[in-house]
């Protein structure tokens, strides 16, 4: 497998990812894009604010990519997360993988986003009209 593309960025350009994952031996590319949703529990979200412990986040994202490449037969992997203020409909995360057949990249893509959400030190604050909340901080 080629060296995974692992990045924390200020802004995500979703048109980049096809070129990054495209590979002559791959018959399938699977990509997940996470974006800002307008409502949380019927409350209107103004924006999301992301912050990270970048050094550790990159290390954890590399571990996740490595684990995925051990579990599935992949050619390329992208794990990219944005930080800063993001407005409704803006992309905040993009993960993806390419493989010879679709099963590998589908399963790997799900694993990449699910594990990122559990382990990577990135924090999201939901900003509503009258308050803001750090997501998942309290039970």
């Amino acid at each position, binding site marked *: 497998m080629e060296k995974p593309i692992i990045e924390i960025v200020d802004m995500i350009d979703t048109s980049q990812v096809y070129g990054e994952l495209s590979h002559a031996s791959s018959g399938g590319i699977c990509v997940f894009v996470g974006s800002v949703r307008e409502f949380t529990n019927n409350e209107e979200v103004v924006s999301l604010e992301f912050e990270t412990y970048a*050094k550790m986040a990159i290390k954890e994202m590399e571990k996740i990519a490595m684990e995925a490449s051990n579990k599935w037969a992949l050619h390329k992997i992208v794990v990219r997360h944005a930080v800063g203020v993001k407005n409704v409909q803006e992309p905040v*995360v993009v993960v993806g993988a390419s493989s010879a057949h679709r099963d590998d990249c589908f399963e790997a893509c799900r694993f990449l986003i699910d594990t990122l959400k559990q382990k990577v030190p990135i924090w999201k604050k939901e900003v509503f009209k009258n308050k803001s909340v750090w997501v998942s901080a309290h039970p």
Partner: protein
Amino acid sequence: MEVLLFGIAKDIVGSAQMDLSELKHPPSSVGELKGFLCGSFPEFGKLTSLAVAVNSEYAQDAVALKTGDEIAIIPPVSGG
């Protein structure tokens, strides 16, 4: 002993970092650091989880803290 704070941990303490070297008994392990935080700032005890990273790796409670370590408080993560 500098400790980095992120997300809600930064809001609880009111600062992005904290210097513990002036404490009479600075915490000598991850577990002691967590105990110090929950004792000094009860809001830490109300979080879903509380993790500590030493030199940018998740560290269990038994891990010793040494001078020069980069220590960070990792409140519940919520990327994606």
